[in-house]
C-alpha cells in the first residue's frame, strides 16, 4: 500500500521491474567474496585473545612457521604504528593487536598456509604469553570513580583532554529552560531504560581474497559496503599509499552498517606480500560474533513533562552507549537523533563509554533505536496516563518543517505528520484490537546523508546503456540506478545494465551507508544522464543539420520541429561520425539529504504462562520521499522492522564474567525466523525531498528505529507491564508479569 502526496507521474520511476542482479542470485551464480578462489591461493586463520584486557608479553611463532604448508605468519610487529593521532589508529589496532589486547577475541596473530586445516593447526601452535590487566564491561563499571582504564590511548574527543579516559565523547544539548518547564508541567514521567548489545547479523561472514603482486600492489576482492573505504583503511593499516591497493567489490551478503569498516583485508594483504601468493580469509560465524559488529548496549534515563491536554513541554535525557574498547561517537549521534517532537525545553547529556568488549560498529540508524526506545516508551505512557490516542498525542507534538532537532538544526520538509496520518487511516489501526491482545504505536527518525558519489553512463552502439557506480548494492540499489537512468534517457529499464565498479574504474564514492545510495549516487547517475542527453541533442542537431537549441529530448529521442524524431538507438549507431563514443560521468558531494520518519503499529499477545510474545500483526509506514522501486522500499521497511522485532524480543549478546561472548552462534544468538513472524504490512508515504531530482529520501535506516518501543507499548497495553529493558524475552516478560 502506498500513500502518495502529489508528485509527477513517471514512466519508470515507481515501477517494479525484476532486479538486474536477481537472475544470478536465484541460480547460485552470484559471486560473493567467499566464492572466489585464485590459483596458488593460501588460506589464513587467526589467533585471538583469550583475555579481555592483557599485555602481550611475547609471541612465539617459530614452531608454527616450521609446520607443513605454512607460508607466512603475521603479528602486530608486522604492521606500522600509525600513532594515536592518526584517524585510522583504532582500526589498525583493532584488526591486529600490538602490545595490548583490549577484548576477548582481539586478533593477535594470523597464519597463511596451503589449506585452512593446516593454517588452523599452525595457529594453534603459536604461543602467546599475556599479563592480564583489569577489565570493565558495563557502562556503570566504566564510568565509576577510579575505574580501570579500558584503553590507555583513548582521550575524550571534542574537548581539551589531558588524561586518557573511558569516555570517548560527551555531548550536551540544551534549549529552553527545562527546570521551569518541569515545574510547570501537569504530568512528569521519568524512567530508565537499558538495551543489550546486538549484532547486525548479516548471514555472510566477512571474507576477502587479496593478491599482493611483485610490484607491491594489492588486489583485493571483498565483501564490503564501501570498497573505497576498504582501500583507504587497508592502505593506512599497512602504511601504504592508497594507489597500492585496488579493491573490487564482490556481491555483499548483508551488512546493515557492520561492513562499513574493515577487519581482514590488511592482514591478508600483508600475508600475501610475505608469501608471494594470494591469501583468502573467511571469518567463522564464531569470529563474526566475537570480533565484529556489535551495536552498543545502552542505558538511557528519560524525563518528559506534559500538559493535561497532551502538549509535550520538556524532555531531559541522560544517555550512555557502551561502545567497546575503542572510541566511537555513538553517544553524540544518539543525542542528535532526538528530533521527532517539538519539545520547546530540552536537555540532553550523552556519553560514549569504553569497555573491554568488541569495538562496536554501525548498525542501521546507529544510536537512534536506543534513544527512541526510551523516549517513545515514555511518550506512550503519557498518552496512556492522559487517556489520549497515541497517534493524536504524537500528531499534536510532531515536528514539522522549520522545527528544530535536538542539535538545533531546523527540519527541512519532512513527512512525519503524513506517516502518523497514514497509520491512523490504515485498515490495521481502524480494526478492533484482537481479544486479549495489545496494540502499540511508536515513531522513528533518521537523518539520512548525502556525501560523495560518482557515476559513469555509457550509451552503447546498440542503443543500450551501462550505468556504472561506486556504490556496493546491499538492498537493490542497482535496480534503482537503472530506473532513474531509464526515466532520464527514455530507455527500457532492461536495456540498461547497472554495475558497481572497482576503485580504479569509477570515480571516488563514499560507503553505502546512511541511506545515501539511492539519494546521492542516484543523483550522480541523473547528472551523468543529463550530460549525455545534452551530448545526444547535439549529435542529433548534427544529423538533422539544425541548431542544438532547437532539439529537445522527449521519451528517448531527439526531437526538432519539422523533423522525424531521432531515437537514441539511431544516435548511438551514428556516434562515430558525429563525435565518437557517447559517455558521461558525474561526481558530486550531495547536499540536501531528506530525513525519513517512520511510524509502526503492532498487535501482539502474551502467553501469561511462559512470557512469550507473539506478534500478530505489524504495519510499518515510512516516508520514502519518492519510492524509486517500491518493492525494494517495502523490503527495506520489512527488513528493518524485523531486525527491530528481533532486537526487541530476543537478540542480545550474553557475556561471561571474563568478557567472552557466551552465545557466538546463530543457535544461541537467535535472530527472527520465518515462523516467528506475521506478514509485515507496509505503507509507503511519499513526501518528495525537494533536493533530489526525483524526490528521494532514502529508506534503509529508519525502519529499525520504532519497533522496540512499538512492541514495548503494545506489551504495556496487552498485559499492563511497562518493559524498560531489552530484550523483552520470555524470562524478562515473565518476571514482569509476576511482579505486576
Amino acid at each position: 500500500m502506498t500513500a502518495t502526496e502529489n508528485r509527477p507521474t513517471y514512466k519508470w520511476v515507481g515501477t517494479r521491474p525484476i532486479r538486474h542482479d536477481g537472475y544470478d542470485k536465484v541460480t547460485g551464480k552470484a559471486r560473493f567474496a567467499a566464492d572466489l578462489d585464485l590459483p596458488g591461493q593460501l588460506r589464513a586463520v587467526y589467533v585471538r585473545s583469550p583475555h579481555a584486557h592483557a599485555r602481550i608479553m611475547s609471541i612465539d611463532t617459530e614452531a608454527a612457521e616450521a609446520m607443513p604448508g605454512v607460508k607466512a605468519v603475521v603479528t602486530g610487529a608486522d604492521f606500522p604504528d600509525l600513532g594515536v593521532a592518526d584517524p585510522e589508529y583504532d582500526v589498525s589496532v583493532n584488526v591486529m593487536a600490538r602490545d595490548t589486547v583490549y577484548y576477548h577475541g582481539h586478533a593477535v596473530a594470523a597464519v597463511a598456509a596451503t589449506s585452512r586445516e593446516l593454517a588452523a593447526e599452525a595457529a594453534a601452535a603459536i604461543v602467546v604469553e599475556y599479563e592480564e590487566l583489569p577489565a570493565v564491561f558495563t557502562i556503570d563499571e566504566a564510568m565509576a570513580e577510579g575505574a580501570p582504564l579500558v584503553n590507555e590511548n583513548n582521550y575524550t574527543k571534542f574537548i581539551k583532554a589531558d588524561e586518557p579516559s573511558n569516555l570517548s565523547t560527551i555531548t550536551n544539548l540544551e534549549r529552553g529552560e527545562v527546570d521551569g518547564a518541569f515545574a510547570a508541567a501537569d504530568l512528569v514521567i521519568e524512567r530508565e531504560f537499558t538495551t543489550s548489545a546486538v549484532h547486525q547479523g548479516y548471514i555472510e561472514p566477512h571474507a576477502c581474497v587479496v593478491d599482493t603482486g611483485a610490484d607491491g600492489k594489492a588486489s583485493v576482492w571483498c565483501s564490503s559496503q564501501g570498497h573505497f573505504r576498504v582501500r583507504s583503511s587497508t592502505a593506512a593499516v599497512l602504511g601504504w599509499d592508497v594507489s597500492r591497493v585496488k579493491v573490487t567489490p564482490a556481491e555483499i551478503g548483508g551488512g546493515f552498517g557492520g561492513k562499513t569498516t574493515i577487519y581482514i583485508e590488511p592482514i591478508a594483504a600483508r600475508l600475501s606480500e610475505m608469501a608471494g601468493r594470494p591469501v583468502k580469509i573467511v571469518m567463522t560465524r564464531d569470529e563474526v560474533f566475537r570480533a565484529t559488529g556489535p551495536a552498543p548496549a545502552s542505558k538511557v534515563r528519560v524525563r518528559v513533562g506534559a500538559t493535561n491536554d497532551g502538549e509535550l513541554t520538556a524532555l531531559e535525557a541522560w544517555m550512555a552507549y557502551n561502545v567497546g574498547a575503542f572510541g566511537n561517537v555513538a553517544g553524540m549521534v544518539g543525542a542528535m537523533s532526538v528530533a521527532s517532537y517539538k519539545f520547546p525545553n530540552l536537555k540532553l547529556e550523552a556519553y560514549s563509554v569504553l569497555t573491554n568488549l568488541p569495538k562496536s560498529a554501525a548498525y542501521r540508524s546507529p544510536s537512534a533505536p536506543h534513544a527512541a526506545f526510551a523516549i517513545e516508551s515514555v511518550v506512550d505512557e503519557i498518552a496512556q496516563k492522559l487517556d489520549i490516542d497515541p497517534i493524536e498525542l504524537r500528531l499534536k507534538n510532531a515536528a514539522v518543517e522549520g522545527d528544530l532537532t535536538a542539535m538545533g538544526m531546523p527540519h527541512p520538509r519532512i513527512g512525519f505528520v503524513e506517516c502518523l496520518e497514514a497509520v491512523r487511516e490504515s485498515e490495521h489501526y481502524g480494526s478492533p484490537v484482537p481479544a486479549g491482545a495489545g496494540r502499540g504505536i511508536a515513531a522513528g527518525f533518521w537523518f539520512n546523508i548525502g556525501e560523495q558519489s560518482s557515476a559513469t553512463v555509457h550509451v552503447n552502439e546498440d542503443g543500450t546503456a551501462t550505468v556504472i557506480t561506486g556504490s556496493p548494492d546491499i538492498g537493490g540499489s542497482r535496480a534503482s540506478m537503472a530506473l532513474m537512468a531509464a526515466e532520464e534517457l527514455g530507455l527500457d529499464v532492461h536495456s540498461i545494465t547497472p554495475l558497481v565498479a572497482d576503485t580504479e574504474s569509477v570515480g571516488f564514492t563514499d560507503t553505502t551507508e546512511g541511506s545515501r545510495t539511492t539519494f546521492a549516487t542516484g543523483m550522480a547517475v541523473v547528472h551523468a544522464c543529463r550530460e549525455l542527453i545534452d551530448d545526444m541533442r547535439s549529435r542529433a542537431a548534427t544529423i538533422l543539420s539544425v541548431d542544438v537549441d532547437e532539439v529537445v529530448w522527449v521519451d528517448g529521442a531527439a526531437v526538432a520541429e519539422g523533423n522525424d524524431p531521432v531515437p537514441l538507438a539511431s544516435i548511438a549507431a551514428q556516434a562515430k561520425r558525429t563525435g565518437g563514443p557517447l559517455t558521461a560521468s558525474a561526481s558530486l558531494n550531495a547536499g540536501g539529504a531528506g530525513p525519513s520518519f517512520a511510524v509502526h503499529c503492532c498487535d501482539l499477545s502474551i502467553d501469561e504462562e511462559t512470557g512469550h510474545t507473539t506478534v500478530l500483526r505489524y504495519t510499518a509506514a515510512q516516508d520514502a520521499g519518492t519510492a524509486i522501486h517500491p518493492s525494494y522500499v517495502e523490503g527495506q521497511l520489512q527488513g528493518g522492522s524485523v531486525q527491530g522485532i528481533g532486537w526487541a524480543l530476543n537478540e542480545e549478546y550474553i557475556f561471561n564474567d571474563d568478557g567472552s561472548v557466551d552465545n557466538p552462534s546463530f543457535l544461541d544468538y537467535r535472530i527472527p525466523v520465518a515462523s516467528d513472524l506475521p506478514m509485515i504490512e507496509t505503507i509507503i508515504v511519499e513526501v518528495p525531498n525537494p533536493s533530489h531530482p526525483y524526490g528521494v529520501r532514502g529508506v534503509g535506516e529508519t525502519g529499525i528505529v520504532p519497533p522496540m518501543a512499538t512492541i514495548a507499548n503494545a506489551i504495556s497495553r496487552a498485559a499492563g507491564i511497562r518493559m524498560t529493558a531489552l530484550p523483552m524475552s520470555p524470562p524478562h516478560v515473565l518476571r514482569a508479569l509476576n511482579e505486576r
Partner: protein
Amino acid sequence: MNRTHVNCTVNGDDVDFLAADGISLLDALRDELGLTGAKEGCGTGDCGACSVLIDGKLNCSCLVLAPEAEGAEIVTVEGIADGDRLHPLQQTFLEGAALQCGICTPGVLVAAKALLDANPDPTETEIRYALAGNLCRCTGYDKIIRSVQEAAVQLREATR
C-alpha cells in the same frame, strides 16, 4: 593425509571427488566441485544457507561429512532450474522481490522446493515452519513467503 574417493550424482551429473578427512559436503561442493551456490553462513547448521537436497531430503550440507554423499543424488540451487527455464520458485522470487543481498536465497529456494515437492498446497504457517531453518536478515520473510505461495499456485496449475 587420508582421502576418501566419493562417487555421487550432483544435479543429475555423475561426479567423483577425493574428500580429505573431516571435510563437509558443503566444502566438497564448493571447493572440489566448484558449485558455490550453497553458502556457508555459520558452519553449524543454524542458518540454512548451505541447504541442499540429498536423495530428495533437505539437509544442511555443512553438517554432512563429504563421504556420506557416496551414492547419493544431490540437488543444489544450481540444479533446480530446468535447463534455461527457471523453476517457478526462482521466477516468483524475482518477480516478488523476495531477495535483497541474496546470500540466503540459494538455501531458501532449495528448502522451499523441498516443501513444495512434498506438499503442493501448504498454508502460510506450513511455509513459515518449513523455512524456519533458513535465516534471512534482509527481507523480514514477507516477500519470501508470498513468493513461495505464488510458486505453489503456479506449480499446481501446471500439473492440473
